[in-house]
């Protein structure tokens, strides 16, 4: 833990990546705003630097003038305002999380904005827990939408949901190889597969690597999904499609990002811990994680150019 002597030192240390836990129903912009506001508040509460002094040359000009050193009032906190403001911080996110999604969120502060760009372009795999509910379908595919269909779900068993989910995963993997443009039973396809997962080269195409049902207690169930380039609405439709394939109706009750690359929820800071000390500590942990895993920013796997 860094010992904070004064605000200037703390501000200089604030360059890097932080990992926070985004609560549901709070927009990403507000998360950014709260983090920066808290940083400003804590920095302004730290001991300030010494006030600047000011040289004044006074007296009549036709006689010897006197030089005095006086306090510079313009530098006073009450005149020039708080030392640290919102505009002093740059802040960007590595991957967007929708309003209703929660979970691991990587934010870059000041020079860390470069890191978030790198993480974004290296297309790390994100793992999600998607909570769904059977028996009801909505127009937005999410719990807040209007109900458009109701259905019974007594015939759904764990085996059925597992088989449908496995089928969905296979279909996604198949399209991944098809989009790569090589024949499925060729030597090239084998070599491509042996180099690891195929990553999409641009940020447009959602690719799912694994879907698994981890919790099933009708009508509630939870899916665990590993994906790249997904977005909240895409995950909602996944639950809706699952409902259709199971011959019932389903809607999504919540989306939670549990992992982003190597950043897990245990590293993520809760809302009550978004303070200068905790954020600095978290920034250090994130930097250590990045140093230990150089491949996070430079993945060496096949790129999917579709």
């Amino acid at each position, binding site marked *: 833990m860094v010992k904070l002597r004064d605000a200037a030192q703390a501000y200089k240390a604030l360059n890097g990546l932080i990992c926070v836990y985004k609560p549901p129903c709070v927009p990403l912009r507000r998360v950014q705003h709260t983090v920066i506001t808290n940083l400003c508040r804590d920095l302004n509460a730290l001991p300030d630097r010494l006030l600047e002094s000011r040289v004044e040359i*006074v*007296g009549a000009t036709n006689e010897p003038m006197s030089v005095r050193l006086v306090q510079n009032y313009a530098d006073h906190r009450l*005149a020039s*305002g708080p030392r640290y403001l919102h505009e002093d911080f740059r802040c960007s996110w590595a991957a967007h999380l929708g309003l209703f999604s929660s979970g691991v969120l990587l934010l870059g502060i000041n020079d860390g904005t470069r890191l978030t760009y790198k993480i974004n372009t290296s297309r790390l795999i994100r793992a999600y827990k998607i909570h769904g509910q059977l028996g009801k379908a909505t127009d937005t595919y999410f719990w807040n939408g209007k109900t458009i269909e109701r259905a019974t779900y007594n015939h759904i068993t764990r085996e059925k949901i597992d088989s449908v989910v496995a089928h969905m995963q296979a279909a996604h993997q198949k399209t991944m190889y098809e989009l790569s443009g090589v024949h499925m039973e060729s030597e090239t396809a084998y070599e491509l597969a042996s180099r690891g997962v195929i990553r999409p080269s641009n940020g447009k195409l959602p690719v799912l690597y694994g879907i698994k049902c981890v919790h099933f207690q009708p009508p509630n169930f939870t899916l665990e999904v590993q994906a790249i380039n997904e977005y909240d609405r895409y995950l909602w439709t996944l639950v809706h499609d699952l409902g259709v394939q199971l011959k019932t109706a389903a809607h999504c009750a919540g989306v*939670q990002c549990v992992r982003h690359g190597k950043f897990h929820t245990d590293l993520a800071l809760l809302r009550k811990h978004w303070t200068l000390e905790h954020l600095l500590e978290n920034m250090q942990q994130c930097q250590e994680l990045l140093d230990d895993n150089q491949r996070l920013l430079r993945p060496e796997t096949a790129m999917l150019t579709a």
Partner: protein
Amino acid sequence: MSGGLPKSMFRRNTWITYKCLYQYCRNMSVATSGVVKYEDPGLHPSTGHEDPGIRPSSGNKDLSSVTPHFPNAFNIAAYVNSSETLKKLIDLNVDLSKIEKKPYVAVKLLKLDFEKDMKEHIIFLLDHITDPNLLGPFITKNPLIFNESIIDLEVRVNYLVSKRFSKNQINQIVTKNPYWLNFSTMRIDRRLGFHQDHFKLTGDEVRQLTVTQPKIITYNLQHIKTNSFAIREEMGFDDKEIKALLLKKPKLWLMNQISLLHRFNLIHNELGISHKTILQYPQILECRKFRIKQRHSFLEKLGRAQYDPTKENFVPIMALAEGTDTDFCKKYAKCSVSDYNLFLKTL
């Protein structure tokens, strides 16, 4: 920019435009004679050949009163060093950086002179606030107090005396609501009347309300009406309960109506807390919604969400709003904080 450097004076967005620089230069002792002397602001002192007195060649004249013009600035800090008034205000702990956020107020403040326009007001205010240390925050909040005449201020205080407020109560009112003294007695009288009518209060109750929350009297009356509607019609409190609620927590009437309703909805409909209990602990409506919701869902998960005092394992409703998470976990959830934090990461 690096952290420790002073904020540049030109960072703020507020642009204080001074159409006439002479007006505020009145109180800048160094600049006064220089500016008055040269009526054309474009004329630089050293090039003013019309007046032989200030030619550079005439070395035996005192030129200390000649100064360049003040340029337009983005903030008040640019003028602080050359104005005794502003220096004194800073010594009084007045936050000029907050005042300059409202340029029309800042322009008015710059035109004032400490000895002439402020001294009497400050002496008057020191008599009427509870703690002298609060003078700075008071002026920060309401610098326009200097534009009111001292006779008016006395009349406004005397009005409160005539309404049988004690000296101590008047001080509390003035301290809690710095804008109070800017309202004329007519307006204050009308507003006190409005609240008495609207909530059917007796004289003593009006006095109690005014002292506990003087802001409600000078607040936007439409807002008060909207919140009354929300509390009466949407939340379903009856007139007697509203009166009790008002005297206990007048702040509810200053809050945003929609967020208040959301909170009430959570507490009453989801947690099942009755109107009577809410009336007993109206502070619960001041607590942020997510805090109550998080703690409630944690207790629910543990099977401890039991808010009925007649049954066993009773959790008081204020436990959801008050205290740190550590205390809450130890006393009511009977587990460690790390468990609670883990739970929060599953939401």
